[in-house]
């Protein structure tokens, strides 16, 4: 196996254990280094792909199966569907929040795993997230449990989870999503605010009863233009 064959084989299947492949990696320092460098990228790819599945997924699939099995009793199913549709329509009419506020809540709902993080986030990680997005924040104002970059409306934004008085508080920093005045966020048993921040906005959302205004003052988030 020569170097070109080696790299071609690697790029078809990075996990392969072909003896010729391994032998070449051991005897060719350049390809050995290539393998180590690409292995780090491969590990990052695997980590990125491994998004957590919802804890209730299996239960919901089995519920759908049970529901399908009960199709032998159409009147009962029809009644259930009518009630469910009516409840859904009523809920959507009565609680539908405006666009960006709704997307903030949807994003929190879509990534529930961050709310359950118990460990403190590494200060370096928080600093790198803020630096990457050109954001200034009084980082010592709260304990940070999670910091990452997420796509919100197809733009990168910072997703932070802080320790609040009543539970986890999500802070989404949204460069490029401007709002002109403070707006309240309510829904999913949560409350918060969407705030103007220079060329972008900041959403701070906690459990009902959380002291959001106090956090707004302490965090002093600034987005550089």
């Amino acid at each position, binding site marked *: 196996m020569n170097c*070109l064959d080696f*790299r*071609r084989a*690697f*790029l*078809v*299947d*990075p996990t392969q254990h072909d003896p010729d492949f391994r032998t070449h990696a051991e005897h060719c320092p350049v390809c050995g280094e290539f393998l180590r*460098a*690409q292995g780090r*990228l491969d590990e*990052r*790819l*695997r*980590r*990125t*792909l*491994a*998004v957590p*599945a*919802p804890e209730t*997924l*299996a239960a*919901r*699939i*089995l519920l*759908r*199966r049970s529901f*399908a099995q009960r199709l032998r009793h159409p009147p009962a199913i029809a009644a259930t569907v009518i009630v469910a549709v009516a409840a859904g329509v009523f809920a959507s009419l009565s609680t539908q929040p405006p666009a960006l506020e709704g997307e903030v809540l949807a994003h929190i709902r*879509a*990534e529930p795993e961050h709310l359950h993080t118990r460990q403190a986030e590494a200060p370096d*990680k928080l600093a*790198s*997230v803020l*630096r*990457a*997005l*050109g954001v200034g924040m009084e980082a010592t104002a709260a304990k940070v449990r999670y*910091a*990452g*970059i*997420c*796509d919100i409306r*197809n*733009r*990168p934004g910072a997703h932070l989870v802080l320790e609040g008085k009543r539970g986890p508080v999500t802070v989404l920093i949204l*460069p*490029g999503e401007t709002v002109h005045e403070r707006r309240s966020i309510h829904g999913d048993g949560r409350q918060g605010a969407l705030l103007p921040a220079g060329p972008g906005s900041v959403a701070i959302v906690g459990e009902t009863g959380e002291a959001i205004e106090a956090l707004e003052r302490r965090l002093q988030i600034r987005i550089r233009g």
Partner: protein
Amino acid sequence: MPANERFNALVHAWSADHYRFAYWLTRDRPGAEDLVQEAYLRAWRALATLRDEQAAKSWLFSIVRNEYRRRWKSLKPAPSDAMEEPADGSDALQDWLVRRHLQALPEDYREPLLLQVLGGFSCEEIADMLEVSCATVMTRLFRAHLKLRAALTGAASRPAPREKRHELS
């Protein structure tokens, strides 16, 4: 084994992997969950046709993929990839870049890559699932890995004079 028990075992063994596959196809968490639920409902109805338990994993992956192509793909436009990039080389940025470049891969390249990394399938198995030749799968995997790695190492803009020699088909 009774059908209910057999189905329950499949759900508990594989549904999380299928969710991850569905998520990277749809790029939408609620949509991925819905897609997996629908796919498993189809699997339940067709369970009697699954003769070989060893083939259950790839059988279910194929159902999820078919369900995606049948229902989801025509309804949901892919997100725009006109995203702005953050500006430093941190870990957080690297994670974001992986997601972004993965999403930007053409679907023909992304699908076999997902099946390889998430499903752990060989080229032959992926070829069976996608109903293409093994050489085509190898070419697509090669190009997917190459594009992704070139993008992530910042080499995408550099010429690749030897790329012709890497062509597999």
